[in-house]
C-alpha cells in the first residue's frame, strides 16, 4: 500500500467502479458512502507494548449495514485450508482466530465484535476468485488471502470493490505501484530472501573453502516459485556462481518429482535453493539423498516447517539445511513475542508451537491497526478502510518482522531485510519433538544464524517492478 498510488490509479478505479455500479453487477461498489458522524473520542492504550491511539466510535455511527453493523464487523479470509500450504495456513488462521477472540472478549473494535467469514480456496486461483465474489458484499476487508496468483487474480475486483486485502504471499510485485494499491503486505519478498540467503551462503562457503559454491535451483512454477527463482538467479549471476541445475518451475505437487531429484543429485551442486512447500521438500530431498546428493540445502520460508524434524529426514535436515526467514520464528527473543505467546498458550495449550502462528499474529496486527485507524477517521466502510491503510505511514512489529513503510516510491518502500535460521534437532527433541506443546513452553526449534539483514545485492537492487513479471 503506497499513498501516492491513488493519484496514479484513481481515474482507473473510478471508471471501473462507475462501470460496474452502472451495470449493477458488483456488490458493495456503490453503497458504501459514509454519512457524517459524531466526532469520535480518542483514547490511548498499549497493545503488546505499542502505544496505540484508539478512537472509540459512538455506536450510532452509520455504516453500510452489511459489512459493518451496529454490533459486528465482518472480515473475509480466503485461505488454502486443503491445498499444498494448508499445513501452515491452518496454523495461520487458527492464530488469527485466537487473537480476534481476545479482541472480542475485550470489547471488540469501535464497540463492535469481529466475525470472520473464512472460505477454503484449496490453493486454486479459480476457487479463490469464486469465493471472493461470493463474499465481496458481506465483508469489510480481506484479512487473509493465500497465494500470489490467487491474490493477483482478484486484484481488479478488490480495486473495484474498494476492498483492502492482506496477502499471505510475499511476491515482490506487491511493492510495485502497478499492482500493490489495495494490498497491505508485511515483510520482505521471495526475490529478496533468495538474494540475501544465497549471498550469505556464498560468502560463508567461500570463506571456508576458498572457492565459490555451485548452485542448483528448483522451484514451484507460479509467481511464488518464479519470483524466488528470479532472486536466486540474479544473486548467482551477480556473485559469479555457476548454476549446475536449473529447475525453475519444475516442482509441481502431485507429479513425479524423480526428475527434479535426479537433476539435483546429478548436478553435484554445493547448495540447492528450494522454493516449494514442506511436503514436496520431503519428496525432493529424500529422493535426491537416495540418489547420492551430498550438497547442502537452503530453502525459502514457505518451504520449511520445523515439524520436518519429526520425520525420518529430521537429523539430515538439521545437519544440512538453512532456512530463510521473512519473520521471526515462534518464541524468538524479540519484544513483540511476549503477547503472541501469552495469547496462544492460553488458547491452545495442547497445540504444537508452529512458526506459522507468528504470521497469523502479523496479519491480525495490521488488520486491527487499520480498522482502529478507520474508526479514528470515522469511516468504517470498505473505502474508509483503504483510506485508513493509506494513512498509516509505517508499522513496526517489535522485532517480529522488519518494519514496513507504506509511503514513498517502490524503491523506498520495498522491504529488503530477511534473516537466516538453521533447524535445531536437539532443541526439537528436548521439548518433546512433535509432542511439544505451547502450554509446556514449546517454541519453534530453530537457531538464528543471522538477524534480519539486507545483503549488498538486495540493498542496492534497483526495484522498478516485480522480479518476476506475470506473463512477462
Amino acid at each position, binding site marked *: 500500500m503506497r499513498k501516492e498510488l491513488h493519484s496514479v490509479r484513481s481515474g482507473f478505479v473510478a471508471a471501473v467502479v462507475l462501470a460496474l455500479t452502472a451495470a449493477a453487477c458488483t456488490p458493495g461498489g456503490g453503497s458504501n458512502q459514509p454519512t457524517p458522524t459524531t466526532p469520535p473520542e480518542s483514547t490511548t492504550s498499549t497493545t503488546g507494548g505499542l502505544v496505540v491511539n484508539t478512537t472509540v466510535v459512538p455506536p450510532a455511527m452509520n455504516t453500510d449495514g452489511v459489512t459493518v453493523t451496529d454490533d459486528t464487523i465482518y472480515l473475509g479470509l480466503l485461505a488454502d485450508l*486443503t491445498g499444498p500450504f494448508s499445513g501452515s495456513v491452518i*496454523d495461520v488462521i*487458527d492464530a488469527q482466530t485466537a487473537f480476534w*477472540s481476545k479482541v472480542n472478549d475485550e470489547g471488540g473494535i469501535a464497540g463492535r465484535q469481529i466475525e*470472520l467469514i*473464512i472460505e477454503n480456496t484449496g490453493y486454486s486461483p479459480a476457487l479463490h476468485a469464486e469465493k471472493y465474489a461470493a463474499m465481496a458484499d458481506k465483508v469489510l476487508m480481506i484479512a487473509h488471502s493465500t497465494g500470489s496468483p490467487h491474490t493477483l487474480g482478484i486484484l481488479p475486483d478488490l480495486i473495484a470493490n474498494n476492498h483492502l486485502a492482506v496477502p499471505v504471499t510475499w511476491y515482490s510485485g506487491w511493492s510495485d505501484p502497478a499492482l500493490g494499491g489495495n494490498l497491505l503486505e508485511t515483510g520482505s519478498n521471495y526475490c529478496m530472501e533468495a538474494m540475501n540467503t544465497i549471498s550469505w551462503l556464498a560468502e560463508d562457503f567461500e570463506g571456508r573453502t576458498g572457492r565459490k559454491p555451485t548452485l542448483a535451483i528448483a522451484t514451484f512454477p507460479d509467481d511464488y516459485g518464479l519470483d524466488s527463482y528470479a532472486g536466486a538467479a540474479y544473486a548467482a549471476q551477480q556473485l559469479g556462481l555457476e548454476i549446475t541445475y536449473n529447475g525453475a518451475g519444475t516442482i509441481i505437487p502431485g507429479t513425479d518429482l524423480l526428475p527434479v531429484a535426479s537433476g539435483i543429485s546429478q548436478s553435484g551442486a554445493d547448495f540447492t535453493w528450494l522454493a516449494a512447500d514442506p*511436503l514436496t521438500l*520431503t519428496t525432493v530431498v529424500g*529422493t535426491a539423498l537416495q540418489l547420492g546428493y551430498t550438497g547442502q540445502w537452503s530453502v525459502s520460508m514457505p518451504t520449511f516447517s520445523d515439524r520436518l524434524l519429526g520425520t525420518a529426514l529430521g537429523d539430515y535436515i538439521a545437519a544440512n539445511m538453512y532456512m530463510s526467514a521473512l519473520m521471526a520464528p515462534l518464541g524468538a527473543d524479540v519484544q513483540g513475542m511476549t503477547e503472541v505467546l501469552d495469547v496462544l498458550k492460553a*488458547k491452545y495449550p495442547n497445540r504444537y508451537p508452529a512458526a506459522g502462528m507468528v504470521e497469523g499474529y502479523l496479519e491480525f496486527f495490521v488488520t486491527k491497526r487499520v480498522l482502529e485507524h478507520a474508526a479514528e477517521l470515522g469511516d468504517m466502510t470498505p473505502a474508509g478502510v483503504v483510506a485508513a491503510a493509506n494513512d498509516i505511514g509505517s508499522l513496526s512489529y517489535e522485532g517480529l518482522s522488519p518494519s514496513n513503510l507504506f509511503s514513498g516510491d517502490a524503491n523506498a518502500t520495498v522491504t529488503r531485510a530477511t534473516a537466516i535460521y538453521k533447524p535445531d534437532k536437539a532443541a526439537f527433541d528436548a521439548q518433546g519433538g512433535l509432542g511439544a506443546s505451547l502450554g509446556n513452553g514449546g517454541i519453534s526449534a530453530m537457531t538464528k544464524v543471522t538477524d534480519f539483514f539486507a545483503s549488498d545485492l538486495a540493498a542496492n537492487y534497483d526495484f522498478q517492478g516485480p522480479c518476476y513479471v506475470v506473463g512477462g
Partner: protein
Amino acid sequence: MPLLAVIVLLAALAVWQTGLLDSLFFSEPDVQGALNNAGFDSVTATVTGDTATLVGIADSPTALEQIVAVAMSVEGVRQVDNQVTVGETDEALSLIGQIQAALVVAGFSDLEVAVNGDMATVSGAVADETSLAAAALAVLSVPGVAQLDNRLVVGPVRPPEDVQAALVSALAADEFAYVSFEVQGELAVLKGAVPTEEARAHAAANVLGVDGIDKIDNRLAVDAGLPIGPALPAEQLEAAATTALTSAGIQTVSTSVEGRRAILDGTVPLETIGSGFFSFVKMAEAAVLSVDGIDQVSSRLSLRGDGAILRSGLQALLADTPVEFALGSADLTAAGQQVLDQAAVIIQSQPGLQVLIAGHTDTAGSNETNEALARQRAGAVRTYLLTRGVPAYRLVAVSYGELFPDLEATAEQNRRIEFEVGP
C-alpha cells in the same frame, strides 16, 4: 451570632466539605510504620478509609498471620484486604538455597526449609533421632542462620495421595466449586476463584489445616459474580454437554469440565466457517451452557485436529498390523487393505493434518530398485486411502528406500510403510 463566629463556622464548613478537615484533624493510620517496626519490610500497606490493603510476600503462614494481626492492631484500621502471599523474598531465597545445599551435603534432600530473618524453619520427616540432630546441625552451620525452629519429625512423611484426598475434603464446600489446587511438597497452590473474601480466607485456613501442608500460595481471585452451588461430577456434566452438542448437530467438539466451567476442544468444520467462525463457536458454547450445572465456558476450538492423537493412533495401528504387499510388488494384500481401512478412519477423525506415507525397503538390491519399490508402495497406499474418502491434499507419498533401515529389524520388517504426521 457574632460576625467572626459566623465566618469561622462557614470556613470550617468549607474545609470540611472539601475533605481538608479529615487531613487536618485525622491522620491516616500508619500501617506501614507498624509493619516496618515489626520487621515486615517486604510488605507494602496502603490505607483507604478504615481498610488497609497489604501487598507483598510473607515468609511463612505464621508470618502471614502476624502481618495481618499487626495491621489490625493499628488504630483506625477495621478491615484488612490481604493480598500478601506466602513465599520468599530474594534475600530469603538465597539463604534457603544455602540451607538446602547444606542439608543435601548432609544427606537430606527432601526437607522443607523456610526462613524469617535469621531464623530457619525446617520441616519434614527423617529416619531417626540421629538424623534429626544431624539435620539441625547442618542448618545451624549455614552463615546467617542464628536460630532454628526445628519441626522435623521421626517417621514416614504423609503419602502424597493422602494429602491430596485431605485437600479435596477441605475444599468440598459449595463456595469452593471453582477452586483447584496443586501440591508441591508441603506447599499448596490455590487457583481459581471464590465468590467472597471470606471464602478466600476460609479456603486458605482449611488448606493450612491439612496435615502435610505447611504453606500456601493463595492465587484465588474474588469474583462476586460466581454462582454459589455444588459442582456436579465432571463425568456427569461432560456427558450432558456431549448430548447437548449432538442435539445441536455438532459432532466435532468435545467437552471437559472443571467445577462448573466447561472447556471446549475440537475442530470447527470447514463447511461451517463460511457462515462465520465465531458463529459456530457461539453455537457450541450456547449448547454447553444449556446444561444445568455449567455456568461458564471457554473455547479452544480451531481448524486443526489433534496431531498427537493422529500420530499415536497410526503408530499403534501399524505396530500391531503392518501394511502387507504381495512379494516384490506394490500390490496390497487383502490384509493390507484392511489395515488401511482402519487408517482411513483414524486420519479422518483428525482434520487439517497431513500425513506422509513413507515407503521403506531393506538394503538388499540397488538404491534405484529400492527407491522405486518404496515409491510405488507408498503411492499404492495413497491411492487406496483416496478410495476410502481421505482427501488428496492430506496424503503425500514419500520414498525413503533403504535410507532409514531399522537395524534391529529383519529384512522383511524393513520393507515397510510408515505414517508420519506431516509438517
